[in-house]
């Protein structure tokens, strides 16, 4: 990097060439007041608070939009500068309501701070104050146009960084204000980034409105409990209650960026159905019990089942939301105290596919994503994944890459946020991503565009070659609906790009991809001689990767989830579920329910009284993520600490501690009694990860649907995540529910007409497994013959219709819809 040397306030500093004076100063610990600058945005030069004196230059320069030069001499705090800032403030405060006493920003308001430092106590001018109504009509975001200083930060962060563009300046002169088009109610993705960036109290969190003052609160850095990005969110705690979340510059891998879940989703821990005491089923009802009673009961029943049916009749389900320590103790308890290897988790339907693909293709046991990987590629190919909704903050790097000039091609059936921010949208039939990849490889091989030396040296090359013979552009075009030319061009452009990246998500709820899609992605990577880390498949939730690495998966003969819950022969007699709600989140609810009912002993350890917990013989209350110490491993492989920042609820204790006590109750001490002791063992285990040598191998991956549409079920049901939610957990957050609180069904206008469905009316969705009722939303985002349904909401019971995929086929669900 080229460094430039300059002098600021007599101090010699160095900064990268091309930086502005403001950036150089901030980087070297010299503060220059600014109101319209943000590290993530290009210079704007609108507020003139950042003026400085530059030697040899007439007048004052705006530090945020003046580039540094070698030998430049800058003074940031001279009388002239102060006078100018004072004048700027005078003008800003001219229309300002100055209602600091009732403004939630007070105490951390930049305008307030600057007025305190530079402003005068009177104003030489007088003019009328703005008198616009406050806008409180949208969820979570409130707007008070009177306090706005028109710095434009919110408009720019929303458009340029977040890729949404929901708000803009409207009106002229004195009447200018920030608003969605036509002063409508704000209806955006509600990430809240604009709130964090607003220097004043013009944008605020509705959920925090008048709740506190900043000086009453302690701010705690915590890892977000939702997706695999592992963002750090700053949670404000007052009187032992979390009341606000926000991002902070320089904090965490996310550097202050957050999505709505990280900012607002913390309040799920205050849901009404939090468990407060252990409960035991007596005469058909769950009744309160003491810890000793409950643990003794579990120990005895478990013991007698082991005695009667052997340890292999006990199974356990771990949780992607619990800490590494919790999961480590679960598997240790199962393996050492019970003696079973039947340990699995919901990741079986999600990340396990990615893991399997990486293992088969690259021989790798541990492949976290690279946080910056999207920024290092010139051509990014995303296969049927809305990364911006599954991994919102990592997804921003894809948008940033596009803004920096990379080519972002997104193959998706639905018009997602990522599609709207892409350079190229390859609109294909849902679930056909694997065919598209195969088609591309066919073209690449036929036209000799691949890395012959490397690829031919990889195991199974000829098998791959012959498996592709049916994927001619014509055939692939017929499957995917993408034109032959587009397939050819995509293959040519992709293979000729300087640096490449294939990315897709691995959500358990996503049924448009499967193992084969990921294998095909890996094949493409190897065919072009790229390194394995150009295939990026993130782990889904906050601790998916940590749980997986802690050993919550069968090591040898143990049963996987499919055998535990969906097998016809009921060989499992006892099931121990930690922090998972199979009745809602697992596919094919009827089958799961059946299996659970057949258990002799069902123990559920959770923070809520979930639908599954309601079926249990024993329910054990655990601490939520903010009520215990531990660690999470993000999708990027970073092990990050979570801490106890609020008191536990009722008699709840941390999950790991439950296993400590339970193993003692069973007379088998595991020998670990604190987080520190567990962590020490865990880190030993984790330190061996990703150390094995890679061994590449092609794995032919065919495109096949497990169930095909028919005349009885002519449509395909696509299930997935939406941006505002994450699994079923977030639906217990009131804040997030104020944005989206119910499942819906999106369908194309053409289908709506065909099946006589009116917007926002109820429709029956019927598959061969059952039927559910959903509200219909007619949208141009989805293609014909397809319906899209988010899976987060328990009462919608979407998983009545779905089924788990066993092999590499695509588990799309053929359905029929009828007006209800």
């Amino acid at each position: 990097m080229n460094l430039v040397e300059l002098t600021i306030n007599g101090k010699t500093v160095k900064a990268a060439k091309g930086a502005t004076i403001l950036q150089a100063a901030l980087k070297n610990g010299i503060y220059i007041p600014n109101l319209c600058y943000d590290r993530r945005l290009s210079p704007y030069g609108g507020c003139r608070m950042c003026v400085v004196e530059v030697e040899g230059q007439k007048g004052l320069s705006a530090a945020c939009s003046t580039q540094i030069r070698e030998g430049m001499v800058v003074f940031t705090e001279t009388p002239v500068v102060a006078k100018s800032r004072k004048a700027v403030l005078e003008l800003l405060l001219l229309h300002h309501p100055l209602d600091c006493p009732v403004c939630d920003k007070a105490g951390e308001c930049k305008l307030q701070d600057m007025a305190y430092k530079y402003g005068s106590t009177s104003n030489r001018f007088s003019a009328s104050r703005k008198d616009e109504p406050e806008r409180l009509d949208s969820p979570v975001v409130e707007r008070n146009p009177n306090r706005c200083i028109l710095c434009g930060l919110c408009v720019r962060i929303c458009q340029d960084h977040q890729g949404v563009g929901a708000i803009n300046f409207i009106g002229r002169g004195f009447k200018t204000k920030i608003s969605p088009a036509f002063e409508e109610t704000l209806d955006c993705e509600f990430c809240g980034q604009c709130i964090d960036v607003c220097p004043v109290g013009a944008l605020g969190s509705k959920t925090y409105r008048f709740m506190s003052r900043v000086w009453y609160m302690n701010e705690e850095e915590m890892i977000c409990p939702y997706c695999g990005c592992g963002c750090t969110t700053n949670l404000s705690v007052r009187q032992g209650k979390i009341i606000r979340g926000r991002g902070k510059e320089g904090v965490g891998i996310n550097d202050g960026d957050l999505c709505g879940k990280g900012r607002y989703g913390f309040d799920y821990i205050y849901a009404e159905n939090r468990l407060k005491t252990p409960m035991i089923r007596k005469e058909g009802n769950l009744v309160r019990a003491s810890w000793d009673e409950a643990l003794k009961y579990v120990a005895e029943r478990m013991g007698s089942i082991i005695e009667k049916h052997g340890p292999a009749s006990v199974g356990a389900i771990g949780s992607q939301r619990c800490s590494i320590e919790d999961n480590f103790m679960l598997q240790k308890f199962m393996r050492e105290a019970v003696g079973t290897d039947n340990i699995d988790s919901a990741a079986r339907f999600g990340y396990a596919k990615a893991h399997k693909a990486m293992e088969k293709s690259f021989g790798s046991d541990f492949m976290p994503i690279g946080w910056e990987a999207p920024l290092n590629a010139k051509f990014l190919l995303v296969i049927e994944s809305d990364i911006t909704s599954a991994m919102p903050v990592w997804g921003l790097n894809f948008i940033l890459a596009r803004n920096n000039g990379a080519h972002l091609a997104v193959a998706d059936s639905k018009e997602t946020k990522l599609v709207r921010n892409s350079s190229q949208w390859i609109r294909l039939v849902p679930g056909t991503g694997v065919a598209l990849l195969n088609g591309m490889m066919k073209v690449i091989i036929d036209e000799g565009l691949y890395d012959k030396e490397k690829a031919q040296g990889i195991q199974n090359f000829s098998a791959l070659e012959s498996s592709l013979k049916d994927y001619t552009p014509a055939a692939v075009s017929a499957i995917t609906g993408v034109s032959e030319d587009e397939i050819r061009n995509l293959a040519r452009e992709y293979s000729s790009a300087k640096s490449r990246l294939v990315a897709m998500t691995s959500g358990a709820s996503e049924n448009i991809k499967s193992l084969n899609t990921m294998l095909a992605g890996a094949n493409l990577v190897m065919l072009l001689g790229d390194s394995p880390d150009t295939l990026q498949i993130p782990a889904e939730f906050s601790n998916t990767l940590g749980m997986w690495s802690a050993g919550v998966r069968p090591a040898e003969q143990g049963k996987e989830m499919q055998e535990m819950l969906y097998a016809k022969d009921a060989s499992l007699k006892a099931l121990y579920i930690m922090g998972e709600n199979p009745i809602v989140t697992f596919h094919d609810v009827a089958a799961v329910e059946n299996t659970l009912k057949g258990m002799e002993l069902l123990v559920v350890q959770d923070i809520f009284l979930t639908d599954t917990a309601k079926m249990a013989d024993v329910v054990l209350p655990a601490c939520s993520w903010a009520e215990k110490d531990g660690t999470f491993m993000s999708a990027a492989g970073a092990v990050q600490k979570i801490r106890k920042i609020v008191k536990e609820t009722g008699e709840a204790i941390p999950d790991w501690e439950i296993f400590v006590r339970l193993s003692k109750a069973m007379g088998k001490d595991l020998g670990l009694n604190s987080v520190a002791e567990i962590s020490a063992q865990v880190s030993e285990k984790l330190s061996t990860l990703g150390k094995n040598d890679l061994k590449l191998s092609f794995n032919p991956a065919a495109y096949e649907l497990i169930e095909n549409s028919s005349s009885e079920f002519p449509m395909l049901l696509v299930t997935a995540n939406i941006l505002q939610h994450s699994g079923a957990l977030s639906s217990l957050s009131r804040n997030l529910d104020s944005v989206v609180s119910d499942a819906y069904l999106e369908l194309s206008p053409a289908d709506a007409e065909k099946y006589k469905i009116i917007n926002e009316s109820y429709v029956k969705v019927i598959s061969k497994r059952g039927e559910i009722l959903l509200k219909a939303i007619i949208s141009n985002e989805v293609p014909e013959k397809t319906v899209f349904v988010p899976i987060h909401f328990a009462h919608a019971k979407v998983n009545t219709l779905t089924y788990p995929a066993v092999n590499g086929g695509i588990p799309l669900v053929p359905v029929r819809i009828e007006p209800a």
Partner: protein
Amino acid sequence: MTFNELTKRIFMTEILKGMALTLKTMFTKPVTRQYPEEKREALPGFRGLHALVRKSDSSLRCVGCGLCAAICPSRCISIYTSEGVDHTKVVDRYEVEVLKCLFCGFCVEACPFGAVVLTEHFEYSDYSREALFMTKEKLLNNWDKFMAGKKGEQYFEKYWRPLAEDFGTPENQPVLKNRRAD
């Protein structure tokens, strides 16, 4: 021993002087006050028990800005606010732990509205701590009891005038004056 000292000794001047004072005080009125039968008026500006000012429409003057709580050196003020039905800010609880207070009067000075004051009342000893934990209602009562009417007004004029009142935009400014923005 000098001659002077010698004469003093012989004539017992010192003792006589003392006796004269004793005799004199025997005929003056005693200074002891028979408190609590006999009460003394507080001097103006006295800093006694807290009160929250009630506006003429009988509502609370405090808006819950929390500046008093922020400045209080003994951290004895807690304020809890929330959003009211009409979306305005409502002060749900305003509590002073009087036993912690050191009567510095900073809270009064910090308040931009003159909403919290220290009354002249000082006789509030009690047998329980709870009685001296002042809630919003008790504090409003204090105002009614000790400061409502003329007395409060006088105190505002002399002692409690919020500093914020000195920061108005001056009248008669040349630029932009009377220019309506629309």
